[in-house]
């Protein structure tokens, strides 16, 4: 008997994980919007626009981190160019935002300001349809997806692996950055897009719009986690991990690793693109620096800090590093790069499994003491990540004893 897909999705995340997701969703969809948009300014529980945008931005980063973990933690492919897909999604939606400015720009023209400045008379062909919300949503998915698919097809078919793959992705995002820096490329050169006014006619700075964007970011994160959990708990996920550990053996038992890698690689890029599209209206700017190699390396640092191959670790890592970043860049701006470098070295040396690994180690130590605090569920993170392979799914034992 086939189990319905919904039931299997439900089972792919343990109960504790669903509870954590439900609490998160309640906070993100009810508490934060109410605290920002309904409570008046000056109220003790009012959340400022700055805080809501900052948290919304971090939610987008978390999505990117989970997407990164899917390919790095599970398929063993380290991409140092994921910022490109994030930026492509951002630019795709940014085009729409630019068109929504209408005649409210500094030049009061139909064309976006930077085009007027360049003395362009009409929109380049690839801007066609950019005033349509649906078309830009399509582009948000298609642009990063297509670039990832084509690049992945050639890279994986040529069996480029390990550090070589990482270097090529780095080169790819760098090349894209140089391309987008050029004014002639038609994406605003090094200033990128900014000065956004509206989405679907609603003011982008209104509390309602901010709260909506925040809630959508949270929804994207929840969806990413649920899809990710389903994937890694399915046979597909086990094939991915097998490719990571012994690729030739996987081929030998009849799987084609190319298709598996390509699927998860493209999915990961699309998720990054969606995150980028939600990021841009919340921070109010997109420029080629998002494609700089350092940005992409930072994504890998988030995942390493949180703990690879756990999904929830990626969420934690992105949260911890970015909160630290916002505090550092305000208090000691010049020391942030040093701190980031130190963090990466320290995590690599002392916490190879990241924060989640540390949590599990502490959990394991606690479990040794009999009758340890049971309710805290040792050895699993907030999303209920199974610690070792055996707890992945219980029917194993059932099948083995049959």
């Amino acid at each position, binding site marked *: 008997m086939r189990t319905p897909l919904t039931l299997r999705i439900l089972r792919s995340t343990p109960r504790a994980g669903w509870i954590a997701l439900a609490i998160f969703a309640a906070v993100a969809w009810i508490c934060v919007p109410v605290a920002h948009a309904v409570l008046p300014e000056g109220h003790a529980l009012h959340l400022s626009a700055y805080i809501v945008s900052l948290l919304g931005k971090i939610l987008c980063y978390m999505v990117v981190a989970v997407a990164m973990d899917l390919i790095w933690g599970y398929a063993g492919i380290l991409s140092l160019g994921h910022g490109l897909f994030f930026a492509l999604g951002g630019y795709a939606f940014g085009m729409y935002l630019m068109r929504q400015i209408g005649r409210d720009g500094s030049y009061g023209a139909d064309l976006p300001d930077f085009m007027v400045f360049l003395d362009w008379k009409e929109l380049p062909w690839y801007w066609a349809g950019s005033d349509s919300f649906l078309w830009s949503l399509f582009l948000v998915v298609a642009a990063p997806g297509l670039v990832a698919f084509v690049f992945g097809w050639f890279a994986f078919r040529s069996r480029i692996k390990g550090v070589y793959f990482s270097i090529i992705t780095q080169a790819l995002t760098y090349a894209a950055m140089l391309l987008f820096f050029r004014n002639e490329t038609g994406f605003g050169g090094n200033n990128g897009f900014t000065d956004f006014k509206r989405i679907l006619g609603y003011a982008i700075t209104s509390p309602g719009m901010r709260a909506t964007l925040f809630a959508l970011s949270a929804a994207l994160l929840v969806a990413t986690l649920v899809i990710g959990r389903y994937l890694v708990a399915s046979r597909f996920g086990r094939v991915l991990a097998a490719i990571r550990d012994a690729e030739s053996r996987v081929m030998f038992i*009849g799987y084609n690793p190319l298709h598996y890698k390509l699927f998860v690689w493209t999915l990961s890029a699309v998720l990054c693109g969606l995150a980028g599209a939600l990021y841009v209206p919340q921070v109010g700017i997109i420029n080629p620096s998002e494609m700089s190699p350092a940005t992409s390396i930072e994504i890998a640092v988030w995942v390493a800090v949180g703990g690879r191959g756990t999904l929830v670790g990626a969420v934690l890592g992105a949260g911890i590093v970015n909160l630290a970043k916002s505090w550092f860049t305000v208090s000691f701006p010049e020391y942030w790069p040093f701190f980031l470098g130190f963090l990466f070295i320290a995590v690599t040396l002392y916490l190879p499994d990241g924060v989640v690994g540390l949590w599990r180690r502490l959990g394991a130590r606690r479990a040794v003491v009999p009758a340890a605090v049971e309710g805290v569920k040792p050895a699993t993170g907030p999303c209920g990540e199974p610690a070792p392979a055996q707890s992945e799914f219980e029917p194993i034992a059932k099948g083995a004893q049959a």
Partner: protein
Amino acid sequence: MSGVMEWERNAVADEQRGNFSGNASGAHVVREGELDLSHNVILYLDDITVSFDGFRALNGLSLAIDAGELRCIIGPNGAGKTTMMDVITGKTRPDSGKAFFGQTIDLTRLTEPQIAHAGIGRKFQKPTVFEQHSAFENLELAMKADKRVRRTLFAQLFDDDRDRIAEVLVQIGLAHEADRPAGLLSHGQKQWLEIGMLLMQEPKLLLLDEPVAGMTDDETARTAELFVSLAGKHSLVVVEHDMAFVEALGGKVTVLCEGSVLAEGELAEVQDDPRVIEVYLGR
């Protein structure tokens, strides 16, 4: 399940552009691409020659394995044992000679995955299992199924599959280790697990290259029991140096030397053959 069958049908069609023949002659219906054991021979090698830069690794090798047989291949280093396996699995193309799987499948025309799909499984010397996965999951991944992305995404374990995996776990003596990560198994257990992974693919013919290398005596004895129990349902070709193991298997023995068959028969007969003693056992 229909998807799986459709896929298999396609795969067979890919291999052989399936056609039917034999009706006119009044003989049994033969479908190309399907294993035909009507003459009770599962593997037939005739006058196979393979040279590498002038060195003749196989020199007019002829060999026939019966369906359900357990055959041991022995011979000194460089006798061509591994090259023979390579020819059977499509890794090496012979310069001349015939290699048939059953009556109809010409192995010299198929690629490696096609040969694996047709029902020949090979175990290499060094065991490679997925160390992070449990023994159960290793078998699950190896299981005969539609292995394309779309199917694997929505694949699920049915009771039949679980029973099949449990059965193989018992066969390879790992029923109590089902949930252990394969990386924590002993060397011998890893070898068994890999044999189990082969069995999950339901091959008709198993090629096993030095399966007991590095095993303890006890493990070797249990492996021999396993192979003897597999014979009949599967055909096995075992390349091995360990004479005690060959003796325990008790099947027919073929001695290879310098790329061709030197002697064939029961182990005792072969051991008494003066030529064999000279080239191999006597040293």
